C-alpha cells in the first residue's frame, strides 16, 4: 500500500481505521509464520492500477477469501503470487520466498485451481493428474495412489479412465483439486473455483477445502460468492479498485453482516 495511505480495516461488524501496514492477522496477534504474504504489493497496467499497496498474510490452516467485484484485483493478486505477473512495486512471498526472485522455487509450495480448470482433452482424468503431479515434483506417485486421490477429490471411479473431453465443469474442478492434493502444497490459490458449479458440487468443493485446511494448507480464494466465503473461509478480505478495503474473521460475523459490509464498500 502506498506510503501514508490508510485503509478502513474492519473487525467483525465494527468498522475500524488502522494503518495500512497493520493487517488483521497482525492485530489479531498471529504468531505463526505466514505461508502467503503480500508486502505493499502493487501492480499497474498502463493507466490502470490493478493492485495497490496490498498487505496480506495467510497462515497455515487458514482459508482467506478475497471478495470483490470484477476488476477489483483479486485475480491479479493470485497471478502475482504465482509469478505470472511482475509486481510494479512491493513483493509477494510464499513460505518466505520472494516470488519475483525465486519464481520456480516458490511454486514448489503452491497449488492453483483457476475458475475453469482446463485439462488435456485427449488424456483421461488419471493421465491428466499423473502429468500435472509429475510436473509438480510428484513423479513417483503410483497409479493406485493417483486413483485414490481422484476419489478423495470426489471424482466418480468410472470417470477416472475416461477422456476429459467428456467431463463436466464440476468433474474438471475435482481433478484440479486432486492435482492440488497430489502436490501436497503448503498453499492453495483458488480463483473463483465454484463459479458455475451447482450447489451440490459447490458443497463438495467446500468440504474438500475444509479437509485441506485441516491438513495445514493455507488457502487464498478469490470469489464473488459471499455465502461460500462466510461458510468456508476463516477470514475474508474485501477488495475494491485494487485495494484491500476491509478484512474480517468469519466466525464473528453473520451472513447478513458480511453482505451489508460488502455492499457498503461497493457503494462508497
Amino acid at each position: 500500500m502506498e506510503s501514508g495511505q490508510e485503509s478502513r480495516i474492519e473487525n467483525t461488524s465494527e468498522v475500524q481505521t488502522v494503518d495500512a501496514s497493520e493487517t488483521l492477522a497482525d492485530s489479531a496477534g498471529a504468531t505463526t509464520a505466514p505461508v502467503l504474504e503480500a508486502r505493499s504489493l502493487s501492480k499497474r497496467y498502463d493507466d490502470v492500477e490493478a493492485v495497490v499497496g496490498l498487505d496480506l498474510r495467510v497462515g497455515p490452516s487458514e482459508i482467506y477469501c478475497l471478495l470483490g467485484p470484477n476488476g477489483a484485483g483479486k485475480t491479479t493478486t493470485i497471478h502475482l503470487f504465482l509469478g505470472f505477473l511482475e509486481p510494479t512495486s512491493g513483493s509477494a512471498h510464499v513460505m518466505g520466498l520472494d516470488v519475483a526472485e525465486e519464481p520456480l522455487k516458490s511454486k514448489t509450495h503452491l497449488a492453483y485451481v483457476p475458475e475453469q480448470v482446463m485439462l488435456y482433452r485427449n488424456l483421461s482424468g488419471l493421465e491428466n493428474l499423473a502429468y500435472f503431479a509429475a510436473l509438480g515434483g510428484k513423479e513417483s506417485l503410483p497409479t493406485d495412489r493417483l486413483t485414490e486421490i481422484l476419489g478423495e477429490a470426489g471424482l466418480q471411479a468410472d470417470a477416472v479412465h475416461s477422456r476429459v473431453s467428456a467431463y463436466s465443469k464440476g468433474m474438471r474442478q475435482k481433478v484440479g483439486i486432486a492435482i492440488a492434493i497430489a502436490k501436497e502444497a503448503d498453499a492453495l490459490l483458488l480463483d473463483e473455483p465454484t463459479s458455475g458449479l451447482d450447489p451440490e458440487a459447490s458443497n463438495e468443493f467446500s468440504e474438500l477445502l475444509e479437509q485441506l485446511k485441516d491438513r495445514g494448507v493455507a488457502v487464498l480464494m478469490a470469489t464473488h460468492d459471499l455465502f461460500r466465503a462466510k461458510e468456508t473461509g476463516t477470514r475474508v478480505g474485501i477488495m475494491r479498485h485494487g485495494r484491500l478495503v476491509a478484512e474480517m474473521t468469519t466466525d464473528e460475523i453473520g451472513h447478513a453482516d458480511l453482505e451489508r459490509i460488502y455492499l457498503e464498500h461497493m457503494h462508497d
Partner: protein
Amino acid sequence: MIRHIVRKEFMDVVRDGRFRWCAALVGALLLVSLGTGWVQARNAQKELAAAQATARDHWESQGEKNPHSAAHYGVYAFKPRLALSFVDEGVDSYTGTSVFLEAHRQNDFLLRPAQDATPAQRIGALTAAQVLQHLVPLLIILLTFGALAGERERGTLRQLLATGVGRLELAMGKALGATAALALLLVPAAVVGAAAIVMGSPGPATSPLVRGAVLAGIYLAYFATFIGLSLAVSARAPSARAALVVLLAIWVVNGLVAPRVAVDLSKWLYPTPSAIEFAHTLEQEMANGVEGVDRPDRAAVTQNLLAQYGVERTEDLPINAIGVFLQESEVFGDQIFDRNYGALWDTFKRQGYVHEALAVTAPLLAVRTLSMGLAGTDVEQHRHFAAAAEQYRRDLVERLNGELTENSRTGEVYLASADLWSQMPPFRYDAPEVSWVLKNRALSLLMLGLWLAGAFVVVTYAVRRAEVA
C-alpha cells in the same frame, strides 16, 4: 521433468486424429517418393550403363580407321546417377545426362528428362526432397502452432506454469514431443533410405552412407529450425489462429517466394547469355580467334616443323605434320572453350553464391543447396562431371592425334589397326568426396547453422516473455 512433458505431448499428438491423417499422408508420400525415386534412379542407371556399354562396343568395333576419323566418330560419356540421387534429383532433369565427345567440339549435354516430360509429369513429379523440404515443415507447423498459444487460450498454460515447471523446460519438452511424433514418419523413411543405399545403390558415389548421414543431419537441423520458429511464434502470438496464420505466411515465403526471388535476383545480378548468343560467340571465336588466342596457321606449323627437323619437304619429316596441326587446332579450340564455358560456369557459380546468400531470408534455400549437393545432383557436381568428360575428350583426341602424328608421314593415307580402339581407356568418372561437397557449400552450411542458432535464441526469448493468460 522434461520426459513427462515429452511423453504427454507425444500421447496428445498421436491421439489427435488430424495429426494421424496428416502424418499418414506425408509419411506415405515420403515412402512412395523414396521408393519410386529409387526405382527410377536404378532403371536410369541401368539404361545408362547399357548405353555406355553399347557406345563402347561401337567404339571398339570401328575396324581399321584413320585415328582422326575415329576422333570425329567420337564416344559418349554418360553421367552416372549417384547413390543418393533417388532422394533429390536436383538439376539432373535440366542439365542432361550424356555428352557426345568428339574432336574440335565441346558439345552440350543431351538427354534432359525435363525436355520430354509432359506438363502433368512436370507438376506431379514429387521427390523425397520436396516432401522433406515443404511438407514436413508444414506438418511441423500443424503440430506446434498451438503448442503455447493453444495452451494459453485453453487456460492450461497457467496450470502448467503453476506446477513449477520452467518455461524453457516446457518449450524443450514440447519441441521434443513434436520431434518424437515426427519420428513416427521420419524414422521409417530414414530406415528405408538407408536400406536402399545399403542393399543396392542406384549408382556410384563416394561414401554413400556418410553422405546419407550428413543429409539426414541437414534435414534434422532444418526441422529443428522450424520447430523453434513455430514455438517462438506460438509463444508470442495472441491466439493459436494468429500463430497459424503467421506460420503459414513464413512457410509460403520460405517455400514459394524466396526460391523464386532467389532465381530471379541471381539471374538479374549475373545474367547468362541465351543459348543462341552463346553458340554464336563460340562460333565467331572459333572462326577468328580472339586477342591472345590466335587460330593456328597450317603453313606456319609446317614451316616450324621443317625448321625443327632440318628438312625442306614435308615428305621428309619423320612425323605427320597434319597430325601436329590438328593437335594445335585442338589446343586452340580448347582455349576458346575454356574461355567461354569457363565464363559461363563462373556465372553459374556467382548465381549460386547469390542463391546461398539469400538463404539468410529462408532456410529452405540453404537446405535445398545442401540436399542437391549431397545427392550429387547440383550444378557444381554437374560441372565436376562435365570437366571430367571434357578432360577425357581432350586426352583421347590428343592421343589419337599423336597416333596419326607418330605413325604416319605427311600426305600418307594411314589407317590404324582395329585393336587400337580397345587400347584407349574407357571414360571413368569418380564422384567427388563428401568433404568436397561440404567445402563447396560452406556458405549454405553457415546459413543453416545461423538459422538453427537464431531459432534457438528467438524461441528462448519468446518463451521467457510469453504472456500466461
